């Protein structure tokens, strides 16, 4: 929203004050001001009122005229002018030689064979409207030579406030509310709005008007006749233009002017079209043509202004084409109303039509403003067009009234909330300047919130704090640290485990951490042949490609592998991210935090790569929980899984995830010449596994004994089980030193390390142990080799 300092200055005397400083104070205390400040009129100078004394047609051009003008300097000046509206006796804006318009300095110059000593200007050329149809046609009673800036309010400082910073301030959607803020900041009084006393018309008949829907909070209207003027005064049009609107005709301009001044949207109807004003909704949908000529679909939730049963306007949004003021309109009905903010906002969203009016209504306008706005409108209209007659009494129905809000507090509350000492006098003065009713008993306050702040903005004590502190100025705060007791803060185990997992994967195993999105990448999955599994869906996804929430991170990681196949011969990626495994018994998303790791290799065999990952995960478990991992084959449940070598991962007896290879179809779609393995672990489960801890054992001073045994056996598991079953304290370590496969099958050599802390081992006790292991395995048809 653009704001004019001239307009603001109508209501607060800012003379002698640095206006730019005030604007930046406003930005820090009230609402954000955009950086660019517009110094209107600063780029023109030397433009004066001049009278056209003679007009001759140019001998060779149909468009050009040769003028002699009197610019008040006691001589006639030759000007070549292309404007169509030149005539003898006309007074216009004239840029003399030496005048400046933007970057241009007017100089004598030849134009189509004649010398021209200046330029007659249109409103657009001066920058006060976008009208470039002809040169300005000024009132004839202004003396020639008068600087145009002395005639009209061309010099102004205009600034823009970010509308978003006004969402909670319905009172700031017009200059008067803004002026109130400037008054408070400058410590100067706010002048009252000049209005007429509407009670003078109380004897006139009422307008037939009735609110029939609770979404209309208040409806006020008044009828006029005998409007003779159609063009609004130049200064009014300049203000409208500077604030981003255009002058159209007197009545439209006046309603716009009132909206920009008070924030109250108004609408003028042709009274013939609104003989019985009813505000209501229609049960049946319909099409309605708004005054911009667009057919709009109206549904049963949209509040309408009607002439009995004929809609004439969409309440709070836009008037209808049929009830617009036309040539032969004689009587006007002026509407000034407030509507339920949510209803207007929703209608405006449904219609996809946001207007200056709806934008204001959706902020919860003050219903107390409707009548004042009419009184102000009549005052302005009568000042412009003295012949206007009011032909109805003020007709006003209020269906909804906000409660008066009283807030009680004392200075100690302000002290506690602010942490600084703001005096009771300052509190009182600030609140008064913002229009709050203040009753004060020493340091106790009883405050009445003014109606324009009471619609939703200021309701509680904390809101009062904001009023006091923002005017006080946050830059003026003495800042200090808190006074609070000291207690230790422990990291949540889940958090520290996640950090350590990332460190180990990055620093020890050189993996790369990537992020992906939380949904299935439908198109990319399809290209790789990965099924986009059904799951919880986003209702309002802009794009079906991101509609379904992922159940596992692996498919998105496979897409990332595909992206990076040119990155290197061997690399690994990981992510700690969320997945949803359907809904739980309460219908809530079963969300899990997972660690997903995928390794890619052009150089390692599938088995080598697989064990590289097994080793990484085992390292994590050993480092973080001092636990070993175990694996158990599981069935494939996802399309990307290779059915062979798919294993559930166990840690501390708890299933924490899975490790596997990629289904060959998908693997080939990613890269024919490489191998890919993956693992996905529930990192929360993993982090909650009790840490087995470190139990220190002093190294034995006595010799250790190593026994190597080679078994003909396909897997290590039974050997391990047999050794573990001995539960022998002397066995310190079991390692596999060799595996070998020949025509007789696979053989595995294990090395068992024996040690006793206090004495030398006897050959016999070691043999008892190894014999027992051999015996156990023999029963399972596993024999010693050779």
């Amino acid at each position, binding site marked *: 929203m653009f704001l004019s300092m001239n307009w603001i200055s109508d209501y607060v005397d800012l003379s002698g004050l640095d206006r730019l400083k005030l604007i930046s104070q406003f*930005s820090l*205390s009230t609402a*954000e001001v955009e*950086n660019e400040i517009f110094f209107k009129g600063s780029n023109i100078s030397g433009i004066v009122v001049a009278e056209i004394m003679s007009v001759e047609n140019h001998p060779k051009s149909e468009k050009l005229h040769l003028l002699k003008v009197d610019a008040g300097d006691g001589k006639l000046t030759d000007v070549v002018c292309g404007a169509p509206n030149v005539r003898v006796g006309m007074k216009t804006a004239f840029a003399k030689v030496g005048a400046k318009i933007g970057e241009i300095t007017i100089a004598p110059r030849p134009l189509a064979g004649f010398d021209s000593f200046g330029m007659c200007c249109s409103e657009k050329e001066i920058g006060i409207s976008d009208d470039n149809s002809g040169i300005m046609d000024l009132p004839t009673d202004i003396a020639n030579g008068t600087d145009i800036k002395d005639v009209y309010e061309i010099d102004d400082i205009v600034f823009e406030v970010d509308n978003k*910073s006004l*969402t909670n301030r319905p009172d700031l959607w017009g200059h008067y509310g803004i002026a109130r803020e400037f008054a408070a900041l400058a410590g100067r009084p706010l002048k009252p709005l000049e209005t007429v006393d509407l009670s003078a018309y109380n004897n006139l008949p009422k307008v037939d008007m009735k609110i029939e829907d609770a979404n209309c909070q208040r409806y006020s209207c008044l009828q006029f006749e005998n409007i003779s003027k159609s063009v609004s005064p130049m200064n009014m049009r300049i203000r409208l233009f500077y604030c981003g609107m255009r002058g159209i005709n007197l009545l439209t301009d006046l309603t716009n002017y009132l909206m920009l001044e008070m924030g109250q949207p108004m609408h003028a109807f042709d009274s013939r079209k609104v003989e019985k004003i009813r505000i209501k909704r229609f049960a049946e949908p319909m099409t309605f043509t708004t005054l911009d000529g667009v057919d709009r679909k109206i549904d049963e939730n949209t509040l309408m202004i009607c002439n009995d049963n004929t809609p004439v306007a969409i309440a709070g949004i836009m008037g209808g084409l049929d009830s617009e003021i036309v040539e032969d309109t004689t009587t006007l009905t002026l509407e000034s109303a407030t509507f339920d903010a949510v209803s207007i906002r*929703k209608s405006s*969203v449904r219609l996809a039509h946001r207007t200056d009016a709806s934008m204001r209504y*959706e902020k919860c306008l003050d219903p107390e403003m409707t009548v004042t706005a009419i009184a102000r409108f009549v005052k302005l209209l009568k000042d412009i067009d003295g012949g206007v007659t009011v032909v109805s009494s003020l007709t006003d129905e209020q269906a909804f009234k906000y409660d008066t809000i009283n807030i009680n507090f004392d200075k100690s509350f302000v002290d*506690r*909330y*602010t*942490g*600084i000492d703001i005096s009771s006098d300052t509190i009182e003065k600030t609140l008064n300047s913002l229009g709050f009713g203040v009753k004060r008993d020493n340091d106790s306050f009883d405050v009445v919130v003014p109606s324009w702040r009471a619609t939703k903005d200021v309701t*509680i*004590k*904390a*809101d009062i*704090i904001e009023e006091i502190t*923002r005017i006080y100025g*946050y830059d003026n*705060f*003495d*800042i200090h*640290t*808190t006074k*609070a*007791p000291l*207690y230790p*803060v422990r*990291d*949540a185990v*889940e958090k520290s485990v996640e*950090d350590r997992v*990332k460190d180990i*994967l*990055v*620093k020890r195993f*050189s993996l*790369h*951490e*990537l*992020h992906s*999105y*939380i949904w299935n990448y439908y198109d990319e999955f399809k290209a790789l042949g990965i099924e986009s599994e059904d799951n*919880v*869906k*986003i*209702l*309002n*996804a*802009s794009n079906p490609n991101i509609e379904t*929430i992922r159940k596992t991170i692996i498919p998105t990681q496979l897409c*990332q592998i595909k992206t*990076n196949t040119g*990155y290197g011969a061997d690399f690994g990626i990981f992510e700690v991210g969320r997945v*949803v495994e359907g809904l739980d018994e309460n*219908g809530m*998303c079963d*969300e899990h935090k997972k660690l997903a790791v995928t390794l890619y290799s052009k150089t390692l065999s599938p088995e080598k790569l697989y064990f590289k990952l097994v080793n990484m995960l085992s390292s994590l478990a050993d480092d973080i929980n001092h636990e070993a991992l175990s694996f158990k084959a599981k069935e494939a449940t996802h399309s990307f899984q290779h059915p062979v070598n798919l294993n559930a991962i166990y840690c501390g007896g708890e299933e924490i995830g899975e490790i596997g290879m990629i289904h060959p179809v998908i693997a080939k779609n990613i890269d024919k010449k490489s191998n890919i393995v993956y693992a996905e672990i529930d990192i929360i489960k993993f982090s909650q596994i009790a840490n087995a801890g470190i139990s220190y054992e002093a190294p034995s001073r006595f010799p250790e004994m190593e026994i190597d045994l080679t078994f003909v056996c396909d897997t290590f598991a039974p050997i391990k089980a047999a050794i573990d079953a001995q539960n022998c304290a002397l066995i310190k370590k079991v390692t596999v030193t060799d595996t070998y496969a020949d025509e007789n099958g696979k053989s595995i050599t294990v090395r068992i390390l024996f040690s006793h802390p206090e004495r030398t081992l006897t050959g016999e006790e070691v043999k008892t142990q190894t014999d027992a292991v051999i015996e156990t395995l023999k029963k399972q048809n596993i024999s010693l080799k050779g």
Partner: protein
Amino acid sequence: MNDKIASLKSQFEEQLANVLETAQLEEIRVAYLGKKGSITDLLKGMKDLSNEEKKTFGQHVNMFKAEATEKIGAKMKELKELQIKKEIESMPVFDVSMPADTARGSYHPITLVQRECERIFKSMGFHVEDYSEIVTDYECFESLNIPKHHPARDMQDTYYLDNGQLLKTQTSAAQNAIYKKYKDDLINKNIPIKAVFPGRCFRNEATDACHENTFFQMEGVMVGKDINISNLIFFMKTMLSEVFQRDIKVRLRPGFFPFVEPGFELDINCLICGGEGCSSCKHSGWLELCPCGMIHPEVLKAGGIDPEEYTGFAFGLGLTRLAMMKYGIKDLRDLNSGNLKAMDQFTDDM
């Protein structure tokens, strides 16, 4: 007999002179000094001699033996030195100008920025909390004083799920749970609630270089007796000075967020121009950085905390924005691109 010694001696001298390897020398040692060595043999041939002769001869043999032992020792030392010398000389000179193999992993830049912030907050006694990404309407809006139909719900274009939940639009969605988690300590032991909660947030918007539907924030709250605006400003200034590792100027402007009152937009002096005005700060000298404010009484109430008794402040930091600022990332989409050429550049830099 002495001739025997002399000839053996000269034979020994000759052999010793020709020795090149320690193994050879060892052979010589065994050949002369071993149990069956030549010198030992000499003694065996003594039985035919007279006692006098035995004595003299024995002395000579022993002298020879001692001499041979010493010479072999000296030779051994010499050979070993020679060997080491050879070993040293044979060591090739490495080409240290070859490029080093610096294969290493990488962190996501968000992880790095998040850790840095967490470290700062932990140093000031804050808990670091984690929270789910899928939340309820109550968590994301209702408990934060954003009732149905509130324009704030329009402001944030939310991804709603078909089970009625939603993808959290703001880390504030964790506030209610955090108040409930720590309120007993606050009420019973007067331990202030101090927590930060980083998290991934989602907004339903079209993506481009400056907009992402998925991004990271970190929110923080402090609630206790007498926590006030002055504390908030002090804290934000201190915290941001730590984050940017220089003295930061802050300014507060009123900002409207339903879950705080008063609410602020916090600006810091532009890091590029230092406040002079440049293109980064649109010539204002200030950068809008984080929303903050005093926690709205209704929000405290929803968390089971009496707003008459306790006050608190809350603030939000855009981790994604911080990462972009810190590393000069121009296109927001790089962060979720999964492109290793972009993402492998981030290493632990704390």
